[in-house]
């Protein structure tokens, strides 16, 4: 009987109809290609910049495509929506492969070589697989319908299109199963139980005692309906949000190697040039492609500290609005109309300034986006335009820029006070004739802030206690440039960076150890853009090494509940989250409690992106939001390894009136445990 395990491909319809099917296929593909072509115009031509798809780091691109595209790693970080989407994707992926298999047999192997392989055990397995895939996809669609219309999470935008797409897919699946059921019912082969879905339908039909004649008729009608609906779906892809079937994987491929920790430099400072983005046309084709790859899933919004703190910013809306401006401009350009979209004009901001200034550059949006879109990258471009072209920003930012220009530090205190934090510690100074193994880069916060300068001192004392050969730049130290860059003053940043690179290049040392994660990230990841490759480590790494090597010995017991907060620029930007935990765990008795958002998923303290020097934008205070979240674990001590985070939390703990909660830097805990 084994040879019977197969089916006639055009059963009940007639193989002579094949030509009609192929005509329909060509029409559908025609629509599809036309749609993509139209889109292509919008992707490439709206921008005044040239775009080139780069294929370097190919391995990384392909790996991300497989892991995040096919295996849905980033999506599956959230179970319900992750599985929901994965079921639909995997289901359809398998069904698509199944259809290709049929085409392979019918159009290639069978007519050319006389080989039909869809039979026997392989056929049964094939049927089972496809049926499971179809059922999975159906489960996914049902989950999506429940989520969209019953659960209704805040982050989903309401649009009729979404519903249409879901119902459309559901109809394709249901008609597919019905067709199979009808065929099974009329052929009555018991081995077809392997086609679970179809078998269930045929069972229902036999309960209903359906007439053979009507079954055959219905099958014929449904067959054509299924075909047309499916081809229609294919044609609809480029004209709807289904375009993400094309753009999302492409975007993963394009953006996978991009590091979120570094901002792209402006390379040519030419007086006649235009800097940043003031109209959609200033975006690069790659950035524009991001707009089209966005699936409006809202994960970025769910993870954005500004949105959560009720500031006027949602990274998802940023992409949505820019996308709308882009499409508007593109349509007008197609009509041969030189005018730009309603808010696309040169003098009319693409986004409200409050939105642009609410971002803390914490990178959470890019980290959580399943298709590798960075919202803050677009916000940064708009900031650059505001700062460099229009000089429009809060007056306190102007004061800040002036302070850095005049004094070389973010506090506007001046080099005369650069060494005050070290009074009484006796630290060596590295200069032209004076070298050391380690250059301790203190940073403006450690140098000037009344609280953080104690921590800078503690670190120096720990280094001394461990016998490290280290020195500081003293009065020659200068701001690293991070806040200027992230506020949008790329010019001042690059001038600062060049000054520092020139100085550091002249001196003799082996490694740089920084206190502040922002200095760390800038020196380590951003200075290489200007040809400077220093060996930079964060102090947590250095202390870990000193403890491991036995140069620092933990002797005390500390029976305390401690919550460690991951600074964005350490954890998210540089993957350093196990190191501080390792240090803290090496202290006997210490109970480490994890905040809900930890490690790469950490939540901004509120001071990033220049917010340390900016007024509070209306909304909740970000530091209080975070402190409350950390306090859910009922710690006695909140610890972190970033000067910004620390003072934000000290303020938050005070303003929330939390009694007896201490905020300490990791190095202070180590000092107490020695």
């Amino acid at each position, binding site marked *: 009987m084994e040879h019977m395990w197969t089916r006639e491909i055009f059963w009940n319809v007639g193989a002579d109809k094949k030509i009609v099917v192929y005509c329909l296929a060509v029409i559908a593909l025609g629509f599809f290609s036309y749609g993509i072509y139209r889109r292509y115009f919008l992707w490439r031509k709206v921008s005044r910049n040239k775009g080139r798809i780069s294929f370097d780091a190919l391995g990384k691109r392909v790996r991300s495509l497989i892991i995040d595209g096919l295996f849905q790693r980033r999506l599956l970080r959230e179970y319900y929506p992750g599985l929901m989407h994965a079921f639909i994707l995997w289901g359809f992926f398998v069904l698509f492969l199944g259809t290709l298999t049929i085409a392979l047999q019918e159009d290639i192997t069978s007519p050319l070589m006389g080989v039909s392989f869809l039979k026997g055990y392989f056929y049964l397995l094939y049927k089972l697989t496809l049926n499971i895939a179809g059922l999975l996809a159906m489960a996914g669609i049902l989950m999506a319908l429940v989520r969209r219309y019953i659960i209704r999470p805040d982050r989903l935008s309401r649009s009729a299109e979404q519903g249409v797409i879901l119902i459309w897919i559901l109809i394709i699946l249901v008609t597919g199963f019905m067709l199979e059921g009808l065929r099974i019912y009329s052929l009555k082969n018991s081995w077809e139980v392997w086609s679970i879905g179809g078998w269930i339908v045929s069972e229902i039909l036999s309960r209903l005692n359906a007439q053979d004649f009507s079954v055959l008729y219905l099958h014929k009608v449904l067959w054509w309906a299924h075909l047309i609906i499916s081809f229609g779906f294919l044609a609809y892809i480029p004209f709807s949000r289904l375009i993400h079937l094309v753009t999302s994987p492409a975007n993963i491929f394009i953006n996978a190697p991009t590091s979120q920790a570094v901002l792209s430099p402006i390379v040519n400072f030419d007086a006649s040039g235009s800097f940043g983005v003031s109209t959609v046309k200033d975006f690069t084709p790659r950035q524009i492609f991001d707009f089209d790859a966005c699936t409006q899933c809202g994960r970025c919004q769910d993870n954005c500290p500004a949105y959560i703190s009720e500031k006027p910013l949602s990274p998802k809306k940023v992409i949505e609005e820019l996308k709308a401006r882009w499409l508007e401009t593109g349509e007008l350009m197609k009509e041969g109309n030189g005018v730009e979209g309603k808010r696309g004009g040169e003098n009319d901001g693409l986004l409200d300034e409050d939105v642009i200034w609410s971002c803390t550059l914490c990178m959470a949006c890019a980290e959580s986006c399943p298709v590798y879109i960075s919202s803050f990258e677009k916000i940064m471009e708009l900031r650059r335009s505001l700062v460099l072209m229009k000089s429009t920003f809060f007056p306190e930012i102007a004061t800040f820029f002036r302070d850095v220009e005049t004094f070389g530090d973010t506090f506007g205190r001046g080099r005369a006070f650069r060494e005050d934090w070290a009074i009484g510690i006796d630290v060596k100074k590295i200069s032209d004739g004076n070298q050391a193994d380690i250059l301790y880069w203190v940073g403006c916060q450690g140098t000037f802030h009344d*609280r953080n300068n104690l921590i800078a001192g503690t670190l120096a004392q720990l280094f001394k206690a461990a016998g490290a050969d280290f020195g500081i730049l003293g009065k020659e130290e200068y701001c690293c440039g991070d806040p200027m860059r992230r506020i949008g003053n790329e010019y001042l940043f690059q001038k600062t960076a060049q000054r520092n690179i020139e100085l550091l290049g002249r001196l003799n040392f082996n490694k740089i150890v920084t206190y502040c994660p922002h200095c760390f990230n800038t020196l380590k990841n951003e200075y290489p853009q200007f040809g400077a490759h220093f060996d930079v480590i964060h102090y947590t790494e250095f202390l870990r090494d000193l403890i491991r090597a036995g140069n620092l010995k933990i002797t005390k017991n500390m029976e305390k509940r401690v919550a460690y907060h991951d600074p964005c620029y350490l954890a998210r930007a540089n993957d350093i989250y196990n190191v501080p935990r390792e240090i803290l765990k090496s202290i006997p008795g210490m109970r480490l409690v994890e905040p809900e958002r930890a490690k790469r998923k950490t939540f901004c303290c509120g001071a990033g992106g220049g917010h340390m020097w900016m007024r509070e934008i209306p909304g909740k205070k970000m530091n209080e939001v975070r402190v409350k979240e950390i306090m859910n674990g009922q710690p006695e001590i909140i610890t972190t390894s970033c000067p910004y985070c620390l003072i934000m939390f000290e303020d938050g703990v005070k303003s929330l009136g939390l009694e007896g909660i201490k905020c300490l830097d990791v190095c202070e805990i180590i000092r107490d445990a020695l």
Partner: protein
Amino acid sequence: MKVIVFVKQIKYVYAQTGIDPKQNFIGPDDIVHIMNPLDELALEETLRVKEKHRDTEIVVISLGDGFAEDGLRKCLSMGADRAIHIYDADYGKLDAWMTAMVLAYSIRNQEFKLIFCGRRAIDDNGGLVGPYIAEILRIPHVSRVVKLEIDGGRSKVLVHRAVERGNREVMECTVPALFTIEKGINIPRYPTLPGILRAQKQVIQRMEIRDLELPLKSFGPALNLTETISLSNPKPKKRSGGLADATVSASDRLRLMMGGGDTETKGDSTLVEGSTDNVLSEIERVFRESGILPE
């Protein structure tokens, strides 16, 4: 309409790390140079005049050594049209009168409508050069200007002058005239990047003092009318209020400072209470009323 702005690049005394009174008690390697902030306000005011009167030409002039050029570049980046550097290798030795002579003679033969400068330089706090220039040029001057309007015919200027206790004097003045600018008149702009880049390429005209045809046979510090004999530090004032204790939150700290300490309020000071927002808007109101911030 030509407008002249005199600016001074100063050594900014922000720390007391030195022992030399002539160097204002700042250590030589700690010195930073900045444009006198009040001169910056003067330039900003001319830029605003230019926004209303498009045909204005702004010429900035600075007397000084090599550092003066930095200040002039900054003025160009903010939007000044031309810059003139009167070179003085011995910068710092001339007294106010001689400085005013040099500056006045540098524009004596030019057609200008208005002259602006800061009301004083914050390094020596003299406040004399502006009025002296007006005297030498025989034009009227109004000092401590906090608001300025040019009438349509450009023959008169209406100015508000800050006098003591936040009071203002409203005056009318014919042009050409010289105005010295007091703080609070505006918030100077931060230059745009194209402005900065353009300024780097612009030529700064250089003049030597000897080319100025001063009505003097010789020239130099020897002709100074005044001489500084000694400088000393002010006696430290007793600080009242202001408890900058890091153990209280920022808003509390602010409140304590506003109230003059955590114990009691002093005489006629006001204790502002409420949320940070309230406190801030109250501070803003007080500042605006007293003319510290523009209305």
